[in-house]
């Protein structure tokens, strides 16, 4: 294998995992943006999505398309449900209580999935299939390409949604001041539900892409993914959509780079070190806006 094609494949490796991180990071970012909650349960929603796809395809023997749709729909529903049941009663409570609730939900999802689905991993049938193609001398994986394309498309759509639609404006207003937003005629509940729906739908897409790349579903699969994606969101500037993208890709590429250099042992350490350096230089992340407090 030539050095060049090694580099190209490493780049693709990084982009593929990066785009999954980015998708998940977007969900984190959106939820954080609106209710200032580090939604620790977000990674676990992906896990549930993966199991839904598995049940559809393996237990019920349905075609992948159904699996995909069911996973996305299921995640969306779950996200909204969690918000309604666990987060909305805490609208006026201290933020840390909300955080602890999210942690509780995360534990709950992991353990209940284990009870229902068993502790071991379930092998996923292939969801997206297609033949690899060549770019010059390098073989490029079809799944990687699909993953990258789908992620980028989702992000473009999301950007449009937030910046151009009324719902998007409502989201910004609610995120700043719920009371004032209501006085503008914005339904806070609807807006927050909508945000969770979108964020969780992204998690659903993430689940599908993740399982195509790494075909297993297990109860704890979401926690590490969630943490990494969360780091990505912060690195990019939490609350910012392009930030989440940049953060996700940055972490994906960084991990690929570190592993490629044979330092994979230190991968997590390096990721966090970079995060720290970035935050120290730019305390709100790469794309984060500085919020000035007027005295």
């Amino acid at each position, binding site marked *: 294998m030539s050095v060049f094609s090694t580099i190209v494949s490493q780049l693709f490796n990084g982009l593929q995992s990066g785009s999954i991180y980015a998708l998940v990071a977007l969900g984190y970012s959106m939820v954080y943006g609106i209710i200032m909650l580090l939604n620790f349960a977000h990674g676990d929603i992906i896990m549930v999505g993966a199991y839904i796809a598995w049940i559809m395809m393996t237990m019920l023997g349905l075609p992948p398309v159904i699996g995909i749709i069911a996973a996305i729909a299921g995640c969306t529903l779950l996200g909204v449900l969690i918000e309604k049941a666990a987060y909305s009663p805490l609208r006026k409570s201290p933020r840390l209580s909300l955080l602890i609730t999210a942690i509780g939900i995360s534990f709950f999802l992991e353990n209940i999935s284990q009870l229902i689905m068993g502790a071991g991993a379930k092998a996923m049938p292939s969801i997206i299939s297609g033949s690899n193609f060549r770019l010059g001398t390098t073989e490029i994986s079809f799944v990687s390409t699909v993953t990258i394309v789908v992620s980028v498309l989702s992000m473009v759509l999301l950007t449009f949604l937030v910046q151009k639609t009324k719902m998007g*404006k409502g989201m910004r207003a609610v995120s700043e001041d719920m009371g004032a937003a209501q*006085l503008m005629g914005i339904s806070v509940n609807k807006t927050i539900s909508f945000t969770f729906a979108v964020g969780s739908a992204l998690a659903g897409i993430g689940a599908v892409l993740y399982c195509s790349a790494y075909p297993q579903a297990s109860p704890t699969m979401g926690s590490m993914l969630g943490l990494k994606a969360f780091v990505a969101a912060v690195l990019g500037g939490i609350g910012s959509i392009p930030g989440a993208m940049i953060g996700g890709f940055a972490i994906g590429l960084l991990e690929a780079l570190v592993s490629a250099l044979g330092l994979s042992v230190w991968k997590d350490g390096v990721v966090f070190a970079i995060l720290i350096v970035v935050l120290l230089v730019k305390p709100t992340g790469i794309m984060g806006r500085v919020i000035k407090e007027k005295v």
Partner: protein
Amino acid sequence: MLTVNDINVYYGPIHAIKGVSFEVRPGEIVALIGANGAGKSTVLKTISGLLRPKTGNIVFDGRDITKLEAHKVVRAGLAHVPEGRRIFLQMTVIENLEMGAFTKSTVSEEDLEDIFTKFPRLKERRKQVAGTLSGGEQQMLAMGRALMSKPKLMMLDEPSMGLAPILVEQVFSIITELNKAGTTILLVEQNAGMALDVAHRAYVLETGNITLSGTGEELAQSDEIRKAYLGG
């Protein structure tokens, strides 16, 4: 246009509003005055749906809005400029104004221009992030934003607070103008002198109860009021 019927409002165990009733007729300016902590802001918040009364009811424009959620109250044509302004600090001036027109399908340029002629200062600062505006600028923005929804009834909570004298005058003349152009106004003021000046009628709120009411002039003449609220 607005009838408040014997409402009781609680903050947890605190009984903040104890059976308040009053009404605002179409085309009026009604002032609600009272000392610190009398419950003026609470009344406004209850009307606009941010708080729920335990008992009593509120009728706006012939419709019972007691149980209506805040965002629906706005859609019914009632705007509330809250205490402490509550503008969107991280949005620019223009974005704040656009937010005011959220219930409208589009933001009309005319309306914007209209606001800018009322408050030229806002035009100068249109691209500035609202959080860095001075206190007075923020107050103008809050009023401007509420006007963007073209309300039938506008409730103002201490609009003159922190404003320069010249602006206080301006704000009150804007209030009168608005009223002349057909907007009904419910005004809460600490600056009782000015408020009674422009108001057709006024109510005095003391620790959760309405203790006095009458036309603006009547109250301005009243000894009690002079002593308690006009400083002399």
